């Protein structure tokens, strides 16, 4: 197992390298530069600024220098925030983004598992149709729409929840958590239902029923373990998606997370910040997919035997 994990970790290197090079080329190919401003700076100033940020060198030299510095943990200074490094800015927002993603994933798993489970135990009945229809709605409504709707209802009409910040006012974490977690809760619900229905139709479940085991025991002890495997497999990409997608929720609720930098950097053509955040989210995606694969292989020995981590 350890050898397999190590091999997977080795694949990080080419993936990150490709991401860095493609991102580098794309941001340089995009029209508009970091120093374009309404108040036009003289060509001499632009020249000095390019010099100060090493943008005066050929692109391959820039990439080489960047990689060399990145290997030493230096992701360069931010173009938009002079005097601050990219690493520092990312670290200032990362804990909040991780906290937001954590609450959202717990919310999504809990809601998704419960409704998926209820639906799978009542196939074709009202208790299946209603949660599944709601989950379809949850998948369809993006957080950019859901957030303002929740704000309107709970923040403005009923004035029961704050609509701004993170950890500043009582209950201000509820709406962002729901907004970010709902779409994933809906996906988890559908995955749970599908997984459970497949397991509940298998021979060992029939055997368990024939042995006279209680339905609760059959579901919780025997079926659930295999039934939630699709959920576990999806957990890695889901967490990575939550982290990367948090920028919408962070913007709606003015949360000081790293997701806002991700978007602002693109608008500001803050090259080093775009690269830094891209590397971060690539690294996280790879890591969470790896973790979910490890968990899945523990739950399902066949994955381990067939090299599920491969």
């Amino acid at each position, binding site marked *: 197992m350890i050898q397999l994990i190590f091999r997977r970790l080795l694949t990080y290197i080419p993936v990150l390298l490709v991401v860095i090079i493609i991102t580098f080329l794309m941001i340089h190919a995009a*029209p*508009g*530069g970091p120093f*374009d*401003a*309404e*108040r*036009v*700076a*003289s060509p*001499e*100033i632009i020249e*000095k*600024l390019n010099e*100060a940020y090493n943008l005066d060198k050929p692109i391959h030299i820039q990439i080489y220098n960047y990689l060399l510095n990145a290997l030493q943990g230096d992701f360069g*200074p931010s173009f*938009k*925030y*002079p*005097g*601050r490094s990219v690493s520092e*800015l990312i670290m*200032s*927002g990362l804990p909040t983004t991780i906290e937001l993603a954590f*609450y959202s994933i*717990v*919310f999504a798993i*809990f809601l998704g598992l419960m409704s998926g489970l209820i639906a799978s135990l009542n196939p074709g009945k009202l208790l299946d149709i209603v949660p599944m229809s709601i989950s379809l709605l949850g998948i369809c409504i993006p957080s950019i729409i859901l957030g*303002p709707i929740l*704000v309107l209802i709970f*923040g*403005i009409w009923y*004035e029961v929840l*704050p*609509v*701004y*910040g993170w*950890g*500043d*006012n*009582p*209950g*201000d*974490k*509820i709406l962002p*958590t729901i907004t970010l977690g709902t779409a994933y809760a809906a996906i988890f619900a559908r995955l749970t239902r599908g997984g459970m229905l497949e397991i509940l139709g298998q021979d060992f479940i029939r055997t368990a029923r024939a042995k006279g085991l209680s339905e609760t025991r059959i579901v919780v002890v025997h079926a659930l373990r295999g039934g939630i495997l699709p959920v576990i497999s999806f957990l890695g990409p889901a967490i990575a998606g939550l982290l990367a997608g948090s920028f919408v929720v962070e*913007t*709606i*609720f*003015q949360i*000081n*997370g790293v997701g*806002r930098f991700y978007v602002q950097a693109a*608008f*500001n*053509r803050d090259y080093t910040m775009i690269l830094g955040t891209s590397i971060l989210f690539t690294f996280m995606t790879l890591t969470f997919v790896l973790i979910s694969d490890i968990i899945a292989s523990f739950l399902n020995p066949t994955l381990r035997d067939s090299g599920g981590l491969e």
Partner: protein
Amino acid sequence: MRILFILLLFLLNCSGSEDGKTKVDIFSEKGILLLGNGTEPSGIDPHIVTGVPEHKILLALLEGLVVFNPKNNGVLPGVASDWTISNDGLVYTFIFNPNARWTNGEKVQPSDFVYSWKRILSPDLGAQYADMLYVIKNAEKFHKGIENDFNKVGISAIDNQLVITLENATPYFLNILTHYSTWPVHPETVEKFGGMTNRNNQWTRLENFVGNGPFKLVSWEINKSLKVSRNELYWGNSSNKINGIEFFPIDNELTQDRLFRSGGIHLANTVPTEKIKRYREERPNQLIEHNYFGTYYYRINTRKYPLNNANFRKALSLSIDRDLIVKSILKGNQKVSYSFTPPDDKSYNPKTELKFDPVKAKLFLEYSGYDTSNAPLEVLYNTSEGHQKIAQAIQEMWKNNLGLNVVLTNVDWKVYLERETLGEFDISRAGWIGDYPDPFTFLDMMVTDRGNNKTGWSNYEFDKTLKDASSEISTQKRYELYEKAEKILIDELPVIPLYTYTRTYLLSERVKNWQNNILDTNPYQFLSLE
């Protein structure tokens, strides 16, 4: 269920408010201002930053030779307690306030300003506002590397005085000094944490920052808040009634509006357009609307056919119904523009005209000889619902009144800026906010080959008139020259002014002594809270 309960406890892990009082109530009693401040400031180095949110913060942390007078757009003593101007208007001598102190207790010296202005004018710093000081003798040459000896620049410290020699008599020089790019930095601190021309200098860090303003930096959480508290060493501290300020970087105007209504901030620096009418009806005392020193206009690329023809440009301008745009689209009390420089009843008020006359417009189109069946012209604007609405209205007006085909192109902000700078546009939407309260800040932009001209327009008479105006000491004569230049501009129309900006924002009634002025600047030490 247990997990959900624990999660809820986590989510509700904060303290509650006292006795149903809002945050604004509680903080007003403490003398602390809570300000919505737009975007996260890119920094607090006065020689590097360029934005409005940064200005609002620097207004608390630093002080220049003079302070902006919010009541009359003039100046009040700052670090300089007094000053004299030579008869020819070329030499300014500033006498320093002996009580002016840095937050580390040191006296603010004239040599600090010499260092600071050398810093902003050093080409290696890459300061984007260095040209504010070009009025000083040899400053432009030093900044452009033509003159390398800073001793030849007209800035010198003699005893407790700072002596400034200008290129030409510049009657608005004191107004320029209210701009943050002219404010001082503490030389030893800048040297200690990176050096004079290092853009990544660490001197602005919370633990390193040394200022000389009425407030000192207390905390700075990125994308969350920046706090300042009263600077007891400030020379005017005894008359300062504000104990502290918290700046919130809230770029979403709806969030800012909700926060204001829930009593979370004293000032929301913007109001969603669709809510202005409701605020006028329901909270007229909290909605502030006043003229702003800015013009919204269309920039014409006069290097291109048919836009290089002044008759064609006149046809474009005459066929725009500005009243309709202001009343039916903007609805924010904006004023229709009749000049490029925003007029002021009390000072500069040019008698230029920009009429809506479709019949005359058609005539000018005929004079220009342009065939409307040619390929359509393009109106370029940066993506924004507001810009789009105006562009669509103008597209319709040009179609109906002139039979002109126009296509609208919206692009991302940086793409828009690049295309404008490279001259890759026909007509583009533009806006300009004056840096100091003098018409020169607008008109100078249109001088031949100025970086911000961007239209390719050049007029010898205009350039000459403006040059004469910039060194005219008599205000009346200067304004007459400005008006002459303005008339040339409006006659030629390389820019088509549409409306004068209005500042619209929400202000708690607890904030007292607030002045509505065209620069939208209120030094905090003049305010009080009830």
